[in-house]
C-alpha cells in the first residue's frame, strides 16, 4: 500500500472513530510529515462533519414535510369533535333511560277477551254439565286427589 492510500485509510478510520492507538500514532506521524497531509486531513474531516450537518438539516425538513402543522391541527380538531360527540351521545342515552319510565304509556293488563261470532250464544259451565264433559273432568280431578 502506498503512502497516500495508507493516509486515506487512516483518515477514514479517524472519521469513523475506529482508530486504534497504533493507527492514531501512524496518523500523527503522517500529519507531522508535511502540510499537504494536514490539509487533506482537515478537509476530509470538515467534509464529514458538513455531511453530518447536511443530513441533520434534511431529516428535520423531511420530518416537517411528512407531518405538517395543518394535518396536526386537523387531527387535533377531529379528536376534540369526537370527544364532544361521544359526550353528547352519552347524555342523550342517560336522559332517555331516566325519562323512559315517566314517558312510557300506562297499559292496563288486558284480560283475555272472547269474541262471539254473530248469531252464536256463548254458553259456558251449564252446557259443559249437560254434555257430560264436566263429569269426565270431575272424575279425573277426583282420581288425582
Amino acid at each position: 500500500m502506498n503512502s497516500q492510500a495508507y493516509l486515506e485509510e487512516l483518515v477514514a478510520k479517524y472519521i469513523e472513530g475506529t482508530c486504534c492507538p497504533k493507527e492514531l500514532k501512524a496518523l500523527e506521524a503522517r500529519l507531522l510529515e508535511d502540510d499537504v497531509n494536514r490539509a487533506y486531513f482537515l478537509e476530509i474531516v470538515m467534509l464529514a462533519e458538513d455531511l453530518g450537518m447536511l443530513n441533520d438539516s434534511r431529516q428535520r425538513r423531511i420530518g416537517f414535510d411528512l407531518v405538517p402543522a395543518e394535518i396536526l391541527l386537523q387531527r387535533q380538531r377531529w379528536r376534540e369533535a369526537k370527544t364532544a360527540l361521544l359526550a353528547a351521545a352519552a347524555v342523550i342515552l342517560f336522559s332517555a333511560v331516566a325519562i323512559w319510565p315517566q314517558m312510557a304509556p300506562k297499559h292496563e293488563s288486558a284480560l283475555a277477551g272472547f269474541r262471539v261470532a254473530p248469531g252464536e250464544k256463548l254458553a259456558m259451565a251449564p252446557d259443559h254439565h249437560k254434555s257430560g264433559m264436566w263429569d269426565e273432568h270431575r272424575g279425573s280431578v277426583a282420581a288425582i286427589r
Partner: protein
Amino acid sequence: MNTTCIEIDGRLNRKSSEAAFMALLNGHQILLRNFVASLIPAIDARADIVQEINILLWEKRASFELDTNFKAWAFAVARYVIMNHQKRFRRRERLMFSSEVMEALADQFVELNPEPDERMEALCQCMSRLRDEHQRLLLVCHSERGSIELAAAERGQPAVTVRSILLRLRNRLRKCIHERMTRSQLTL
C-alpha cells in the same frame, strides 16, 4: 442626563451588544464543530467539548470587543478548552493527539480560514452531481446514528466495499468543493 436615563441606556447597550455577540456565536457554530472534530479523535466527546467552548465564550463575552476578530478570539478559547481536555483524556487513557500535532493542526485550520456558508453551498452543488444512491450513502454513513455496517447490510454488500466507495466519493467531493471555492474566489 439623570442617573435613571444612564442606567436604562447602559442596559439597552448591554442588550444590543449581547444580541450581536449571540449572532456571532451562532454564526461560528459550524466552524467550532469542525475545529473540535479535527483535534479530538473521540467522537462521543466532541459535542460536550463544543458545548463547553460555547459556555466559556458566553461567560467571557465581556472581554471580547465587538468589531474585532471573533474567529481568532473564539479559536483561542477553543484551544484552551481542548488543551484542558487533552490532560483529562491522558489521565483516562483515551485516544488523543500529541500537543505537537494539535498545535500544527490548529494553526493550519486557522490558516485555511474555511468559510462555512460557502463550503456548504459548494457541498450541496457537488452532491447534486452524484447519483441518488451515492448521495444517500454519504448522508447516512456520516449521520450521528448511521454506520457503515448498517449501510452495508442494507445494500447487501460487504462493509469493506462500502468503505472503499465512501472513500472514493469523499475524495471526489473534496476535489469538487476545492475547485468550486477556488473558482468563486477568482471571480470575486
